C-alpha cells in the first residue's frame, strides 16, 4: 500500500467520523485544522485505523504522532514495505 493510498483511506475514515465529505487530509494536517477533532474523536480515529488496516498501534507510538503524515508513516511501517 502506498502512502497515497493510506492517506486516501485515512481521509475516508475522517469523513465518516465527522460526517463531512469536504475534509481533505494532507501529511501536515494537525488536530487544530479540524474543529471537532478532540481527544474522544482522536481515540475513535485510531481504533478505526486499526480496524481498517488490520494493525495494532502501541501506546508509545500513538503518543508520538504529531500530524497526519506521522500517522501515515506509522501505518506504512506496520503494514511492511509497499508492494
Amino acid at each position, binding site marked *: 500500500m502506498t502512502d497515497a493510498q493510506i492517506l486516501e483511506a485515512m481521509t475516508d475514515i475522517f469523513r465518516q467520523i465527522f460526517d463531512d465529505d469536504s475534509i481533505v487530509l494532507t501529511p501536515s494536517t494537525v488536530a487544530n485544522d479540524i474543529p471537532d477533532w478532540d481527544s474522544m474523536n482522536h*481515540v475513535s480515529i485510531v481504533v478505526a485505523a486499526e480496524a481498517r488496516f488490520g494493525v495494532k498501534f502501541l501506546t508509545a507510538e500513538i503518543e508520538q504522532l504529531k500530524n497526519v503524515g506521522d500517522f501515515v508513516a506509522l501505518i506504512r511501517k506496520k503494514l511492511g514495505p509497499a508492494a
Partner: protein
Amino acid sequence: MQSPPPAASSTPPPAKGLQLYWLPPPEPWHVAIRGAADADDAVAWKTLVQVANTRLDFIETIRLDRAVRRRFPGPPPGLASSRTARLALLGSSTLDHLLPGLRVGALRRGIWLDTYSGGYGQYLQELLGADSALHRFKPATVLFCFDEEHLFGTDMLLDARDAADLVDAAARKIENLWRLVREHFDCPVIQQTILPHGVPVFGNNEHQVPGSPRRLAQALNQRLREMAPHNGADILSIDDRLLMDGIGAWHDPALWHRAKQEISPAASHFYGDLVGRLLAARLGHSAKCLVLDLDNTLWGGVIGDDGLEGIKLGQGNALGEAYVAFQRYARNLSKRGIILAVCSKNDEANALSPFRRHPEMVLREADIACLVANWDDKATNLREISRRLSIGLEHMVFADDNPFERNLVRSALPMVAVPELPEDPAFYAQCIADAGYFEGIYLTADDMDRGQQYQQNQKRESLKASLNASAGNLDDYLASLQMELLWAPFDEMGLQRVTQLINKTNQFNLTTRRFTENEVRAAMEDAATITLQLRLLDRFGDNGIIGVIIARPVADRAAAIDTWLMSCRVLGRGVESATLNLLVEQARERGFQRLLGEYLPSEKNKMVEQHYPKLGFAGLDDSECGTTWKLELANFRTLDTFITTKKSHLITGSL
C-alpha cells in the same frame, strides 16, 4: 490490496469490530442520508430508521448519528410518545464515546433518543443536587456503568471476609443509587453488569483467591441480578456478551489507560444496540411473534419434492440435527411466551405432514398458533397472520433461509424484522438470539402459557367458523364458549403483570398512558381510586389477565376512567360490555354518580375510537388531544353479555 501484518509482531491482534451480522449489509447509505436532509420530516425519519437497520460498523454509526442530530435536533413532529426516550448515562469512566451508539441503537427501533452523560465519576453529586444538570435533563431512564477499579479499588485483598465485605458494600452502594433514581425521577434503571477485565493471578483455580478482581466482579454481578427485579432495575449483561465475543472485542487495556474508556469504541455500536433493546422493551416494542418458513428453515430440503422420508431432520445427520436444534430453540422461545407462526409457500397438506407424521419433528401443530401455507407472496401472508393473531406487524420476526423472500418482505413490510439468517442452519438460533428481537423485562406466569392461549384462540376461531358454516349465529357461538370473567382490584401479586400490560398494550388502549410499577402501586393503595384487573376463562381454557381499568375520583361525584385497556386476544366477545357492567357496579358502590371516558388517539388505537359511544356514553366537548364522554349511572341499564362475572382472589395465581 491489503498486505498481511508482519508475522513477527507480538502485539495482540486488533479488534475486528463487532458486527450486527443479522442486519442486511448497508446500501450506499450516505446517499440515503443526504436525501433525508431535504425530505419532509416523516420521510426523512423513515429513511434514517431504515439506514439504522443495516449492518453499520462503529464508524458508520458515528456518521449516522451526526446526520440524525443535524436533521432532528428534537424529536420528529408527530412521533408517538412511546417512540421518544430520555436516557442519562452515569458511571465511573469515560462514557461520551458511547452516546452515538446509544442513539442509533434507539433509532434502529424507531425511537428518538435524547441523551445525557454525567461528568466522569460525578454521579452521586448529580443525583443529589436538585439543581444539577442531570435534574434539569429529567431522565426517563438512567443507565449506570461502573468499572471494577472504581468499586473495588486496585489493591487486591486476600482475606475472604474483607473480600465479601467489599462486594457487599458495592452492592449496597448501587442499590442506594437505584433508590435515589426512584425518589428523584421515578424512572427505570438499567444497570450494566461489571465488565470483568481484571487479569487473573491464579489461573484456572482463580476462584480460590477471595479478592481476585475477576472473582469480585462475578460475585457482584450475581448480587446485581438478585437485587434488580425488586428494584425496578433491568440488567445489561455485558459479562454474558464477553462469553460470546471475548474480552478483546469489548475492552482494550491500551484505551483504558489512554482515555479511561472501559468499553472500546469498536464495540460502542453493539453496546448501543443492547441498550436500545432494553429501552424498546420498556416502551412495549419488543417482538412478540416468530414467523417461520418451512423448507430449509425448519428442515433440510423441500417437503413437496423430497417427501416425508426425503427431508433432512434429525436422524444423526449433521444437517438434520442442526434443524432439530433450531426447532428446539423455537419451542423454548414459545415456552417463554413468544408466539410461533408458519408462513410457507407450499400446499397446506404438504406443509402439515411433517408436523403430523415426522417422528423427529420437535415442533408440533399445537406449538404453531397460526399456519399459513399457500402460493401467495409472503408479505400478503404475513399480513394475514398479523390479522388472525391480532399481533401488529411491527411485533413480528420473519425467519426465512431464502434471501429473495427476505428482501421481498423487507421492502413490502419494513416494520417486520427479517434477520439475515446465516447459511448454515447450525447458526440460526444464535443469530436470532444475537439480534435481540424478543428482549424481555420480566417473565410472568402469563408469558409461560401464552402459546397455549393463542392455540386455544385458533380452536375458538374454528368453532366460530363451523357455527357460521352451519348457519349458526354469533350469539350461539358466544354462548357456547361458557365465558367467565374473574376480577379483583389490583394486588401485590398481580402488580408486575398489570404494569406489563399497561406498558405494552397499544391497540385496545383508550389513553395509552404508561405507568411505572410505583405509579401502579400508588393507584392500588389509593382507596378512592377504582382499580380492576380482569381474567377471562372459557371452555377452551384460560386467556390470562386480559384487561386493566383505573378510574380516579374527580369533581362532581364523577369517576374519570384514566386507563381502560384490553388484550386483543379477546376482542368481539362482549368483554367490554361485561367490564362496563362491573365498573358501573363498583362506581355505584363508592357513591359515584357518573363515569367520564376519554379517548386519546395514538398511532395504533384507532380500533377503540368509538368505544365509549358504542357502550352508551354521551359525547362531551372534544379536548385538544382527543374525545371525552360521559355516562350517567342513574340511567345505566346493565348490558347483555354471555359472560358470568365473578370476584376472585385467584386472579393472578394458577387455577
